């Protein structure tokens, strides 16, 4: 037989993992895609009839009777993309210098600082975000300190705004940007930096010609790791954005838990997934081209 014993035993060995992933990872995904093409049941659940109006509501066709196209979904989606994108920029600007700084520390301090940066993970996300509510609300810590110092005369109304959502989002996803960047900064051969300096490159030239291009893979990984959860996040906008800053994640959550329209929620999720996949593929391609051009 063409399938030799080696290949066969390899397949056999891989089968537990494949079966596990197949059932618990692919399975729900397939169910979601199927549901997105079904008719919503009256009290949640689905009716097993083919139904394309779920996508019609999002993308612009309607039967004019039960399901209506509403551009608000597209608007919410665009806002989500914008917030996620700004969050990538903000976390990048915070994490890159931090990673450089940490890398310059003596080795025993380095481990400690990396540990501290990942420490918030040990506390529940909801608890941490409530702390931010306490900090940001009109009578919160931030305002009392600023008022006390006389920097402002009126409390800043920051809670339940997009700014609050951005602050919370950046806070939550900071480690996802930091760790990949730090990994690539740490991996960077210091003698390359020295070589640049030796050849007459000042600190700024060395950074833009050597350090940054060589740590770009870490930046790319960090950007993806921050962008995706930012886009789908619903806890941060829920707690810090209130009802005003609705993101796509909230919308999906509402469809499943409040509106009990599973097919529409599924259709929203599938749409997000496809758009995100497209964006990431374009991004990776562009990155590859940049690397080749260098």
């Amino acid at each position, binding site marked *: 037989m063409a399938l030799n014993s080696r290949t066969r035993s390899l397949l056999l060995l891989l089968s537990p993992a494949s079966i596990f992933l197949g059932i618990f990872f692919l399975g729900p995904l397939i169910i979601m895609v199927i549901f997105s093409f079904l008719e919503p049941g009256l009290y949640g659940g689905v009716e097993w009839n083919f139904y394309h109006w779920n996508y019609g509501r999002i993308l612009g066709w309607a039967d004019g009777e039960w399901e209506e196209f509403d551009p608000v979904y597209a608007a919410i989606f665009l806002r989500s993309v914008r917030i996620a994108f700004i969050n990538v920029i903000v976390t990048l600007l915070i994490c890159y210098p931090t990673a450089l700084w940490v890398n310059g520390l003596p080795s025993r301090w380095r481990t400690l600082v990396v540990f501290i940066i990942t420490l918030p993970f040990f506390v529940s996300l909801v608890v941490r975000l409530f702390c931010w509510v306490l900090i940001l609300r009109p009578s919160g810590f931030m305002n009392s300190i600023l008022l006390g110092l006389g920097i402002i005369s009126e409390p800043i109304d920051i809670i339940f705004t997009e700014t609050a959502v951005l602050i919370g989002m950046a806070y939550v996803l900071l480690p996802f940007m930091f760790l990949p960047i730090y990994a690539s900064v740490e991996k960077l*051969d210091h*003698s*390359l930096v020295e070589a640049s*300096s*030796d*050849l*007459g490159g000042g600190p700024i030239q060395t950074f833009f010609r050597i350090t940054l291009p060589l740590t770009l893979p870490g930046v790319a990984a960090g950007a993806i790791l921050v962008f995706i959860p930012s886009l789908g996040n619903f806890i941060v906008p829920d707690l810090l954005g209130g009802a005003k800053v609705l993101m796509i994640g909230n919308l999906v959550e509402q469809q499943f838990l409040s509106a009990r329209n599973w097919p529409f929620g599924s259709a929203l999720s599938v749409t997000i997934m496809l758009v995100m996949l497209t964006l990431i593929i374009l991004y990776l391609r562009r990155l590859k081209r940049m690397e080749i051009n260098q």
Partner: protein
Amino acid sequence: MRQTDTIAEVKGAVKSFAAPEGGKVRALDGISLEILHGQFVTLLGPSGCGKTTLLRTISGFEELDAGEVRIAGVKMTNVPPHRRPVNTVFQNYALFPHLSVDDNVGYGLDVSGVARNERDRRVNEALDRVGLSGFGLRKPDQLSGGQRQRVALARAIINRPKLLLLDEPLSALDRNLRQTMQLELKSLQNDLGICFLFVTHDQEEALTMSDLVVILNKGQIEQTGTPEELYHQPATPFVAEFVGDGSLFTGRIENTSDRPVLKTNDGLCLPLGRDARVGETATLLLRPEHLRLAPDQNDESLGILEATLEQSVFHGAIRNYICRLSNGALLTVALDASDTAYKRITTGDQLRLAYPRNLPYLIKQSGNGT
């Protein structure tokens, strides 16, 4: 520029590092050094002797605790590496992996904003000089070890430095390539007329290429001299042991039947030349090429040693016979491998070895390392 112009000068250099087990380690302990125009100077020493630290204080990656570095008469204290008129060939080459060979070599010109066509001309010239024309578009990972070495060299000479620092650049190459590169480096240095300061722990490399060798040990200079001086007139036992092969015997000079001999503590008696000063403590260095099989007839000018042959090792033109002396010490004797007279010698044979009495090196023992 005249031959006697000083290009680089190190005065009283001291540099300490915190040791991992606490306390401080003096990597440089009062080193002074002068490099003249057009010289090929080698820093030679075992690992940890401070040679790389010295190089790094000249390139500017380490600042001295005391003393100073001057390049072309200008004091380099607090001058950052990118403002110093020296360039370095790094031990691992440190080629920029994301840049082509062209851009690696041109890096020094790019950062200083040299015009495009001038830059291209000089890059091509440098690549040409190291024999890598036509490799400009490759990435470093598409090159062999020797080619990378050449790129590193081209990159370092393109800024026309006053002094080129080479930090064990040949250590990663295989033996044949290393020997080729040694000769190429030497002729490149002749062509360019740039001073080379070369760091190595390989004494053969040092002897092959250098005009001047500086032997470092524990942060101090043991001896500075031409390769011939170091080989034939080592100033300290450390130098004698480090440069070339040979065995050292330390003892007191005494008179035996009106001829001076070196008496070691473990009972060896090595005849010396007439000018040996009786009563002094001295070290005798016997190099493999000093020793022969003793002739049958008595010869007053020869010192004789009895030894047992332990092993013989073929080295092409010569064969090394490793012999054990009566005190247990090993002694290597190099004999012409093509001479059939030596074919009879087999392991375990008792040999009578002879060396010229007046030729061996006598080092007056005085303290450690000075």
